[in-house]
């Protein structure tokens, strides 16, 4: 092998050894060392084989044929940055090339001046509006002097336009624009597509300009000419590579077009769209719940119907089912015949996927009869799936794969008409929340025998022994209050979907429990004459309806918090305070939307009391009653992240241990303990820092 100038040899080795060097060339061009100048020369040679004009025209051609932008133009800025000149145009009459736009004038001039993208949707009517104002000003002798610029290049009566600044390293090199004579011709997806293409155009322009500058300095580099010509041979490969790169850019654009049309077709959950557009969407493994529905006897039922009747009935069914599924944060993956396949927990996983899926299923069974006369079977399974875009290139769909899907389908198959059937895996995740019957074992192909369970309904608060001890005073004398509370809730808050809200952190029936406990506590206290007549306690001044409203609405703001905020334990108390603050603010906002701003001070007091910022502060009796009920139910009710809930006696001990609960100082707390404790138990030890039940 012949001996080479060491410097050159090093460069050569670098280039030939690593194809990625071509990408790095652009960055290196800026440097002024001799070594880099050699690389620049090479890079220029590469670009020289694809001259700027050809690149620009090719891009516009692709925009038209692939993406349907039939009127597109690329303008380049001059050195001084004063004007833009049309460098390539497609879809315009001959002679458009060379037309000039002053920077700052017209949409494209503005794009250049502000270096910001613009999307206009109804240019002509807006122009008319401005012209009307101008006419008025002229009549008043106040009109500003019209600019002397001639007509701007472009369609004479364009209605829609997107203009994109072409910027490389903070420097404007030009403007790229598409136009249409239809109003509202472009949307956000077009904006994204054009931005991607615009970046390529900008780089091509910058490289070409640097190439020109470098050619001017070529003389300085004559001493390397011989070596360079040899180098260029090896660079032929790089030229090919460059061409391939360009092709792959066009491929990217093509892929994105497919994506954009899909976007409209709703083939993927909204959350994955950004990754999809950026080509970053990768298949991943997540734990979700899969739900299948099927109408009993639909085939025989539909045989008597006209085809368009079948379609319209099914579409109505799917529209309704989709709405219910969405209400519980599910995603309709596909419909197969008359059945729906829905996913809960896609695309990013969700701590409540199983709970949400079962609630959606129950809601569908509850509402179905209003929509359709045929009974429905629903099956659910939970477990890991692989999720991603699936299908052939022009027809792919966000989809999930795995045994989990098949088992869900089998659960539906074995389900009774009108029932919700769940697998063992789903059962393990939702058991604390529902009344569930075991339906025995079934053969599932490839999986052997599998248990199936039937969900009867949400666990009834009144008979939930984890929260209300069956031997307690409450269970004995006050159970009926729970029905009263539910009636009150339905009467006042028909528009609030409490179940969907409570499912967000698995606190089913929590609001109703708090309201019931607080109301019963109030009645229990009022029944004791010595307490009821004590003016210091102020029990008789409490409005029971107000108490119910506060108890029912106290954590309405949950809808605005994220699943992870609601369901993951807080790492520290500062984080916990922040979260409580956010919950309070969202709750106040939601309460205001219900037109109940009068509750705001009470809800604020409730949060303050519960967080115990100032334990010495006196608190109004109403607030204290709701707080006691809230803390108790938060402890005893099943909740997603806390694992096992507290035993009733444990929760009562905890209540009496609260910082503001010195022995004897809080008669409401003592009364609540009396009301909820198991009949046979009693307080064994009660000192300043110790409470033990026996």
């Amino acid at each position: 092998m012949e001996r080479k100038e060491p410097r050159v040899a090093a460069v050569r080795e670098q280039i030939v050894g690593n194809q990625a060097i071509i990408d790095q060339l652009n960055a290196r061009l800026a440097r002024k060392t001799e070594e880099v100048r050699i690389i620049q020369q090479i890079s220029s040679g590469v670009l020289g084989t694809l001259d700027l004009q050809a690149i620009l025209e090719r891009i516009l051609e692709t925009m038209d044929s692939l993406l349907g932008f039939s009127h597109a133009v690329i303008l380049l800025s001059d050195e001084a940055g004063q004007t833009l000149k049309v460098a390539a145009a497609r879809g315009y009459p001959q002679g458009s090339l060379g037309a000039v736009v002053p920077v700052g004038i017209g949409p494209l001039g503005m794009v250049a001046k502000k270096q910001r993208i613009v999307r206009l949707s109804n240019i002509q009517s807006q122009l008319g509006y401005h012209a009307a104002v101008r006419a008025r000003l002229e009549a008043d002798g106040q009109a500003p002097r019209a600019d002397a610029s001639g007509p701007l290049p472009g369609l004479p009566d364009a209605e829609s336009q997107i203009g994109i600044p072409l910027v490389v390293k903070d420097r404007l090199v030009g403007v790229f624009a598409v136009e249409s004579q239809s109003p509202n011709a472009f949307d956000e997806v077009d904006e994204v597509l054009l931005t991607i293409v615009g970046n390529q155009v900008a780089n091509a322009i910058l490289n070409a300009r640097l190439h020109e500058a470098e050619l001017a300095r070529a003389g300085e580099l004559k001493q390397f000419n011989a070596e360079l010509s040899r180098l260029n041979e090896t660079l032929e490969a790089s030229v090919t590579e460059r061409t391939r790169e360009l092709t792959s850019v066009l491929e990217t654009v093509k892929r994105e077009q497919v994506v954009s049309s899909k976007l409209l077709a709703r083939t993927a959950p909204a959350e994955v769209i950004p990754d999809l557009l950026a080509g970053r969407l990768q298949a991943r493994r997540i734990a979700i719940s899969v739900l299948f529905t099927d109408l009993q006897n639909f085939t025989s039922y539909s045989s008597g119907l006209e085809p368009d009747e079948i379609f319209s009935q099914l579409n109505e069914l799917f529209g309704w089912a989709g709405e219910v599924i969405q209400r519980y944060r599910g995603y309709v993956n596909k419909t197969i015949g008359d059945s729906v396949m829905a996913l809960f927990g896609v695309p990013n996983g969700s701590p409540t996927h199983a709970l949400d899926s079962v609630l959606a299923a129950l809601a569908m069974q509850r509402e179905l009869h209003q929509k359709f006369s045929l009974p429905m079977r629903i099956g659910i399974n939970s477990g890991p799936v692989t999720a991603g875009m699936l299908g052939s290139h022009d027809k792919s769909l966000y989809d999930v794969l795995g045994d989990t899907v098949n088992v869900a389908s089998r659960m539906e198959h074995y389900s009774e008409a009108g029932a919700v059937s769940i697998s063992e895996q789903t059962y393990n995740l939702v058991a604390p929340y529902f009344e569930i019957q075991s339906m025995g074992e079934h053969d599932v192909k490839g999986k052997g025998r599998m248990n199936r369970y039937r969900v009867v309904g949400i666990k009834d608060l009144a008979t939930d022994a984890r929260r209300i001890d069956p031997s307690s005073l409450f269970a004995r004398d006050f159970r009926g209050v729970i029905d009263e509370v539910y009636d009150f809730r339905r009467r006042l808050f028909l528009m609030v979907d409490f179940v969907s809200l409570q499912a967000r952190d698995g606190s089913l029936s929590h609001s109703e429990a708090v309201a019931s406990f607080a109301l019963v506590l109030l009645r229990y206290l009022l029944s004791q004459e010595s307490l009821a007549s004590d003016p210091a306690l102020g029990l008789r001044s409490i409005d029971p309806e107000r108490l119910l409203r506060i108890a029912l609405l106290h954590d309405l703001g949950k809808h605005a918090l994220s699943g992870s905020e609601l369901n993951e334990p807080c790492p520290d108390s500062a984080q916990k305070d922040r979260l409580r603050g956010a919950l309070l603010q969202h709750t106040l906002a939601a309460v205001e939307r219900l037109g109940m701003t009068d509750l705001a001070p009470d809800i604020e007091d409730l949060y303050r009391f519960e967080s115990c910022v100032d334990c010495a502060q006196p608190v109004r009796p109403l607030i204290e009653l709701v707080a006691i009920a809230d803390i108790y139910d938060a402890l005893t009710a099943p909740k997603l992240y806390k694992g096992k809930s507290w035993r009733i006696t444990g929760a009562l001990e905890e209540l009496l241990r609260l910082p503001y609960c010195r022995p004897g100082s809080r008669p409401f707390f003592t009364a609540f303990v009396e009301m909820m404790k198991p009949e046979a138990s009693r307080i064994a030890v009660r000192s300043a820092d110790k409470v033990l039940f026996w």
Partner: protein
Amino acid sequence: MATARSAVRRAAEPALLPNEIKPAMQGAIPASICTCSLDGIPNATIISQVYYVDARHIALSCQFFNKTTRNARENPFVSILMIDLESYDEWYLEARYDHSETEGPVFDNMDMQIEAIASLTGMSGVFKLKSADVYEVLAVERRSPTTG
């Protein structure tokens, strides 16, 4: 808010703007808005553009302080009517004035659109965006030709 008698159904959460509403927002027939002063005088007027901020928010351009902007600041509940001349759908919105922005992406986008057109008619100095008034959408109702 409390308009129990309104025909428009309200949920606990604010209403969501569907995608199909977008063509109506910059329609050829200008949108109409009604506000009401605290002393009970309704004010109906025409607005040339309604800007889509996100699924829960719209923005109106404030180019000069007029009765509409004054009313919205003392009584934030407004009523807006728009029409999409392609589909002939009419859209009825109820919204609540939330806040004004004088910088940031929403303001910049609106400012850009106004300036782009103004510079074409030599009116750059006249059409200046003072602020982007952001409204939270409380209710959306679509009135298709077939239903109306």
